[in-house]
């Protein structure tokens, strides 16, 4: 699925990602953990093609296709989805309108038929119910005046409706209380499938109690400095990032 090789990337001329190599096969969930400033969010932006994040060397492919050559919307159409650490507010655009516009834009890019209003509403209703989101809330402008937890749930709802193949969750647990965290984790777990892969970026081990990773990687100083099974997350929780930060 995702294959990143010796990736280097810079922001404002300053190199943040310094030779990162990572493979996430289909069907697996990988966690990326690391201290603040390690380049976790930068990695998510580089993979999704944000302006200003300049790749200076290396490659990133999704099922063999060069991701780095594609515009952000083209990557989205190929199934790359980023759940934002800080979801943006979109004034004047109801969440439902936003969702349907995005879904149809992706379908159009893939040469599929657009989804008609009744079928879309049915889909949105189902997915919202599963995430315990009041359907009325979807008639309000996306994320405007929503609480931190509501915004995160809205991200997972978008994920469920758009049905991406490669999911990146950037600090999805931040700002969530334990009940909200469970709902969000259930939503994410429901999307686990042999054809999908996920990259869960987090600072704390807490989220990984609910979204169990197959592999855990430590990102420090712009590189993967250690990889292991789920037990690595517990070790980090106990010992902190000090030894890796020093190693980087």
């Amino acid at each position, binding site marked *: 699925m995702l294959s990143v090789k010796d990736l280097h990337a810079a922001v404002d001329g300053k190199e943040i990602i310094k030779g990162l190599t990572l493979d996430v096969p289909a069907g697996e969930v990988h966690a990326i953990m690391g201290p603040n400033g390690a380049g976790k969010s930068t990695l998510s932006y580089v993979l999704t093609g944000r*302006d200003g994040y300049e790749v200076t060397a290396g490659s990133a492919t999704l099922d063999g296709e060069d991701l780095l050559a594609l*515009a952000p*919307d083209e*990557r989205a159409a190929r199934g790359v989805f980023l759940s934002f650490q800080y979801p943006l507010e979109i*004034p*004047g655009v109801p969440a439902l309108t*936003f969702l349907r516009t*995005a879904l149809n*834009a992706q379908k159009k890019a893939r040469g599929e038929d657009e989804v008609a209003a009744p079928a879309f509403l049915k889909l949105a209703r189902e997915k919202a119910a599963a995430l315990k989101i009041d359907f009325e809330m979807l008639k309000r402008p996306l994320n405007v005046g929503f609480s931190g937890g509501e915004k995160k749930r809205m991200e997972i709802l*978008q994920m469920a409706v758009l049905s991406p193949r490669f999911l990146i969750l950037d600090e999805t647990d931040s700002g969530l209380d334990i009940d909200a965290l469970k709902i969000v984790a259930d939503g994410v777990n429901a999307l686990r499938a042999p054809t999908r892969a996920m990259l869960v970026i987090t600072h704390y081990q807490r989220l990984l109690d609910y979204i169990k990773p197959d592999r855990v990687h430590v990102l420090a100083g712009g590189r993967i400095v250690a990889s292991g099974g789920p037990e690595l997350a517990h070790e980090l929780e106990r010992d902190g990032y000090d030894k890796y930060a020093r190693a980087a």
Partner: protein
Amino acid sequence: MAAVRQTVEHVESLERYKHGFVTDIDQEFAPKGLNADIVRFISAKKNEPEWMLAWRLDAFERWLAMEEPDWAKVSFPRIDYQDSYYYAGHKTKAGPKSLDEIDPQILETYKKLGIPLREQEVLAGVEGAPRYAVDAVFDSVSVVTTFKKELAAVGVIFCSMSEAIREHPELVRRYLGSVVPVSDNYFACLNAAVFSDGSFVYVPPGVRCPMELSTYFRINAENSGQFERTLIIADKGAYVSYLEGCTAPMRDENQLHAAVVELVTLDDAEIKYSTVQNWYPGDPETGKGGIYNFVTKRADCRGDRSKVSWTQVETGSAITWKYPSCILRGDDSSGEFYSIAITNGRQQADTGTKMIHLGQRTRSRIISKGISAGKSSNTYRGLVSAHPKAKGARNFTQCDSLLIGKSCAAHTVPYIEARNGQVVFEHEATTTRLSEDQLFYVMQRGLSQEEAVQLLVNGFVKDVLQELPMEFAVEAQKLVAISLEGSVG
């Protein structure tokens, strides 16, 4: 000429300004320049009665003594008023009786613009679709007015201003210049002297006009100004919804459009006036050409409980300089102003409204959405005032500006005057830049950059778009998208 046409075709292919074509027809002009003889020429061309000519000549005398104002936040080279044609008529038999007598080229022009001039074309539309009657003004002359018979059956008069002067002199004499006095301002005064045509509407007491009325203004001739004059009267308890649309060919020189619109509502009457203005904005890179849109629009809510609502979508013109206003004279009368003003390229806009509260318990509401992109400048200027007798007056103003890119400017200049202690005026204003964060967020969900800008902008202007009549809201939404093409990246 070939080069001009080539340019026109080239730009048309870009789809940025798709109304930029020129219609080749036989036209007759007044001699170039402006003097009392030109005023007489125009009046004679229109077979006007003596009182009308006297009114025009009086206006012209006053105009000569006036100075061109310069207080707006716009800049342009001095206008040479002698270097323009003040009358451009097409050569057709006097007063065409049916569409068959109109120059086919003109009919073709309106067809290209998507304006239905044949009533059966309107009727042939979708079952149950709302119908609207059209007065089509081509340069200085009204070409045709549709659905006149059907409207006359309920007593509604809808015709060109020239016809109204001849056929309904008593109404014209009573109301013309009663809202915007002859010497109100420099451009209105010029208009009073040389106005060529425009639309006239009278809705009798208690009548709800059975269809939307609209006027479509088209400037075609080179080096000519357009000075139309619109007068709409809603008598007691009457209601009418009216829409005007405007386009012009792309030309390298600037053309002046100095119109005057007067609205009068008597007791319990209501007028809803919508404008979708898409005059040629000039070249986006060099700023060359484009229309100077210097228009005076004012409503007099003369009657108690009467209501006027202005909705404008301003996307075109090199310079837009206008303030559709309401004089809230009648007790409990109310005025509304909903505006979307978009500037891109080198466009400049200084627009807003005036709400003059004279009567008791008068209410007004202002929602203004300004969007600036490219190297443009966009100013909201508005006055809300309450006079000593306007006890219990209320106003709510919301004024939002959106900046796209780094080289544009937005300004907000509100004037608020309360001359009695029993008024409630609220003013809210925001200025935001279309953020990179928002754009990326939307693109990450699968929208291209252009689509992302459109979605965000449509969200920004939504409050105003929903005030437009349904069939025009869709049109306006497309127009908003086209105006902002190429504004990012």
